[in-house]
């Protein structure tokens, strides 16, 4: 069913944002995150951006100190996901203006809203940046 989870993790391995599209208990989440982060952070630039872990495939991409990890199941186009990560980053860039780890930390709810607009139940919904950002702008206006 496509995307299983999206994680944002910093260089130290701390999770900055986590969104799951299947139900895992807290302990499972913690264990999974730990394993994946260890695996991915250990890799260097010359290696490919896909890691197989349990029955997921992790597609990851690094932006400065932040890692974006997306867990997908076996029938998903890896490169498409890779670019989807980039789209997500570009969208955040447009909203925050050169997004950084702190933006995501302090505006966690906004990051979540964006994700919510882009991915629903593990499927990509919207890829147009202005459409993604419109509800958030709406909210900024009202508050």
């Amino acid at each position: 069913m496509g995307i299983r989870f999206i994680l944002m993790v910093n260089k130290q391995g701390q999770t900055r944002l986590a969104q799951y599209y299947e139900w895992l208990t807290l302990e499972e989440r913690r264990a999974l995150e730990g394993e994946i982060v260890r695996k991915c952070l250990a890799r260097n630039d010359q290696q490919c951006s896909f890691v197989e872990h349990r029955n997921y495939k992790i597609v990851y991409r690094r932006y400065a100190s932040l890692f974006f990890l997306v867990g997908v199941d076996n029938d998903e186009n890896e490169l498409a996901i890779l670019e989807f990560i980039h789209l997500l980053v570009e969208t955040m860039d447009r909203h925050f203006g050169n997004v950084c780890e702190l933006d995501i930390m302090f505006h966690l709810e906004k990051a979540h809203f964006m994700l919510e607009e882009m991915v629903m139940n593990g499927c990509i919904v919207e890829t147009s940046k202005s459409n993604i950002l419109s509800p958030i702008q709406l909210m900024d206006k009202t508050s």
Partner: protein
Amino acid sequence: MLYIFMLGYDVDFGHMEAVSLISAPKYPEKQVGYIVTSSLLNENHDFLRLAINTVRNDIIGRNETFQCLALTMVGNIGGREFAESLAPDVQKLLISSSCRPLVRKKAALCLLRLFRKNPDVVNVDGWSDRMAQLLDERDLGVLTSSMSLLVALVSNNHEAYWSCLPKCVKTLERLARNQDIPQEYTYYGIPSPWLQVKTMRALQYFPTVEDPNTRRSLFEVLQRILMGTDVVKNVNKNNASHAVLFEALALVMHLDAENEMMSQCVALLGKFIAVREPNIRYLGLENMTRMLMVTDVHDIIKRHQAQIITSLKDPDISIRRRALDLLYGMCDVSNAKDIVEELLQYLSTADFAMREELSLKAAILAEKFAPDLSWYVDVILQLIDKAGDFVSDDIWFRVVQFVTNNEDLQPYAAAKAREYLDKPAIHETMVKVSAYLLGEYSHLLARRPGCSPKEIFSAIHEKLPTVSTTTIPILLSTYAKILMHTQPPDPELQKHVWAIFSKYESCIDVEIQQRAIEYFALSSKGAALMDILAEMPKFPERQSALIKKAEVAEVDTAEQSAIKLRAQQHMTNALVVTDQHSSNGTPQSVGQLSLVKIPSTSGDEHTSADQELSQANGTLATVDPQPPSADLLGDLLGPLAIEGLPGAAVLSEPNAVSGLEGVPIPADDAAAIVPVEKDTNSVQPIGNINERFYALCLKDSGVLYEDPNIQIGIKAEWRAQHGRLVLFLGNKNTFPLLSVQALILPPVHLKIELSLVPETIPPRAQVQCPLEVMNLHPSRDVAVLDFSYKCGTSMANVKLRLPAVLNKFLQPITVSAEEFFPQWRSLSGPPLKLQEVVRGVRPLSLIDMANIFTSFQLTVCQGLDPNPNNLIASTTFYSETIRPMLCLIRIETDPTDRTQLRITVASGDPTLTFELMEFIKEQLVGIPTAPRPPAPPAAQPTNPAAPVAQPTNPAALTDPGDLLAGLL
């Protein structure tokens, strides 16, 4: 709060707040409420019911943004209840033209979620038209979502959605030609790559494209994609275009297009696996592997063999894995030799994470495509030499099997083994193989230099101090065999060997001790040695265990039957030993032999035992390794179980045997015959322990054991992989029970913690001992409770199996057809999906069978299978190491012959699949009123210390007792 949750803390306290925020009137509050709810709660949470009404109001309300929020939430976590109450509203939204695309795209995915939860919400007939309408949509957002919905619908039932096919092609065309695409949706100049990918994915779910016009235009598009993609500077653009390209490749493969296009694809892939960009290389390799499965392009791919082998040395493990898979897939007779040699060479430099897989694959390839058998033996021996730690036992068992079955191979293999023994440091597995081969066939080498029995013996003996306890028994067997083959007997050698035997007679390991004693006795007996240690009969020809298992170190049934067979042989030997001991006057329990109708008066027992032996051997040679031998096994078990070793707990064994023979052997008898044994039990259990055990396997509370002094009750609660058992120990007497001891002997897959058991139980009192169980991984082994107490002056000891069995960690789950079929199809072939035909099943009506399944926590799904004679069941398995795993089971029965069925089991974990299959087989074959215990105690007598030893169990293969039994 989300932040707290993300850090991994429990935030139960906030759930209520979040849910109540949903009904807040202001947009920001509502939004926060929805988002928190959807990420914190799961579909079965109680609070969600509270929200259902609010959500519904929002959905049918007028405010678009509210509608969106509600739909998103339902889309993320909506469960069955939502599906039932909201589906019509959502559908209305999706097709209504008055809504903005914003709302409709959400509605599409929301419907997808609901559809997954409950397929009935989408009415097939009506929807195919509407779906087609949806695909005419101009807004790409809606189109993306609808395409996801279509993928799900089509994967479930492609027949009904034929009409959507041309639309998909049209959409693809529109995208590929870049017509009418708003700027917003182009990504680095490529019109929405995600939608393109999704569309092609949807097309792959249709078997073929029949309409020639559509087909032509589709191929045109594909051709354009295949040709038009170039490597560009910009990483993002490059990635996006390649994403589309790979999907196009997959589609071409699926459609099995004409040759020209196919070879174009292969050429492209060949280019990809040579590029520097690791992502592309990875995908190139993966797709090539996939291509192998679809079509016959072996020859073209073989041209790239060198390149693939280079990839095997890539610094990136992901790429290496893919390369290995590809090599494994493309191997055939013509290139097997090269590939296997390459793998062997690589093995010594490969990193540890891959070695096991690598060695297994090399072994399988070597076996499958071996041009001649000596090459195969060479390869495997090299394999063990280079990566001994990673060679599972099965691999060397297989070699032994081959060698035994091929006479021409025997001298060669023995010579090879001898060569390896000369190396200064060799792996333990190598010691095992060499010792075994030399033991069996060293006499064939006797004429060669350096191969006299004495020299071989000393070469092997050199290794003895370095090996572990599991190998020593093999070495002992080898010594005995060498001794036997030495004709005329060499007194010096004999003395030497005897010295070793007597040294190990007091060994702490029971297995070694018993062997040493047996061999010593046997070899002093002389002539009989010849009969017993005669060459192993040929193994029945069977298919390779390795291939079946592919990746898991598990045993297939053939292997099991071999163990049974070996166990028998072991027993026949043991019988003779008993007899030997008795005639030697050793204080062993001779009387027990009478239980198998062998006269217990000493005079002629020698011959009768020998007769029995030859009979058994006779049967062995011809025996069908399947069930018929069970009776024989049972017969042979009788004496052994009781004989055991002095000092072994006696009561448990007769009990275990009683299950097998159906005739309970009163423990008192045993005590009467063997007064020497002090700790024999004088108490007799009330009721059949086995029956009690089986009853407890099905329910959670009941009596586990009862005798005149004590009653042990059990109460259990199971939650996912955790279990909590309480043992109720009740003293029935008016005096206290002393020295109460309870020990748990857990199998490896269970983690069991028993709280302290009080030393004494006061008269007429009941004490409770809680017990925590955690399931680590799937296995059918059973935990054993070793319970003993003192009653008056006599000690009582029982070994009870605890009903912490596989089915306790299952939880029923209902699977709908649309969940079932994709899952079922995605788990294709062994080891994830196993199929087996089982005969000799107790005839059962389908209803009975369904009841049995339900009692084992398997949900029987009605109406999933069109054939009324078939049964489909599903369940979820919980364990610590793997996530909750959906298991699917299909039983096909034959209405004309109820004793035979075909079972197919599928799950996401190979071990689980295997264990579940065996479990079901056990249940279906053996459930009659006096159930056959899943753990025939064959191995117990040889090794009473082993927690649960059962010859039919795969775990038993690693059990030293059985391993040895096989090698004798």
